[in-house]
């Protein structure tokens, strides 16, 4: 399991190599990059992510444990970058390797959904008009 918060650019292929095992025929990866347009259509110049790093890593571990509890053959990576990112750069990678593709899809989907909901990470979008906005995930914060 590769579960990390990083500050340097993410090497997607290295992560996929880290989860690939000879017994795993399929890897599903989700790779989230900085989009050039916000949901409201405004041009995005860049992003800043910050995290409670210890809690975020603990949440990745919890997510991985939940995946393994139901799919023990899955090998999972969750890597999120923090700091300043430019348009097009990779912010997050979730990769799941499994002997069969159904588990790999299921694990990757669960992990990215869970990360968005429960990992203490925050995103500030910077627009071309100079404004900055902290953008919340849709489901976050509605649990308590």
């Amino acid at each position: 399991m590769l579960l990390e918060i990083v500050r340097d650019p993410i090497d997607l292929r290295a992560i996929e190599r880290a989860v690939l095992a000879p017994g795993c025929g399929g890897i599903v990866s989700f790779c989230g990059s900085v989009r050039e347009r916000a949901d409201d259509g405004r041009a995005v110049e860049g992003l800043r992510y910050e995290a409670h790093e210890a809690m975020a890593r603990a949440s990745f571990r919890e997510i991985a444990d939940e995946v393994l509890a139901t799919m023990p053959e899955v090998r999972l990576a969750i890597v999120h970058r923090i700091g300043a990112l430019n348009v097009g750069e990779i912010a997050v990678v979730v990769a799941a390797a499994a002997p069969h593709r159904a588990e790999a899809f299921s694990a990757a989907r669960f992990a990215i959904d869970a990360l968005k909901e429960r990992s203490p990470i925050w995103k500030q979008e910077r627009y071309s008009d100079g404004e900055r906005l902290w953008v919340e995930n849709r489901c976050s914060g509605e649990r308590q």
Partner: protein
Amino acid sequence: MPVVRLVAFARLRELFGERREIALPEGAKVGDLWDTLLREEPHASALARGLRFARNGALCGAETALCEGDEISLLPPFGGG
């Protein structure tokens, strides 16, 4: 008078700073810390929606008692991924 370390994120970090120490009356709870901060910055109340607290890296409720040296985190709604 327990002294706790406050760690704030996102908009709350912009208001309260990233890390600071804060002294509270004996028997104070996490919710009392938030009320103390609101007296300092009343318009922070707009940020109460979806706010969660953590004590020493674990989510906790407003009724959690504060101990000397605790790290109390203010966690606005998440935006990772």
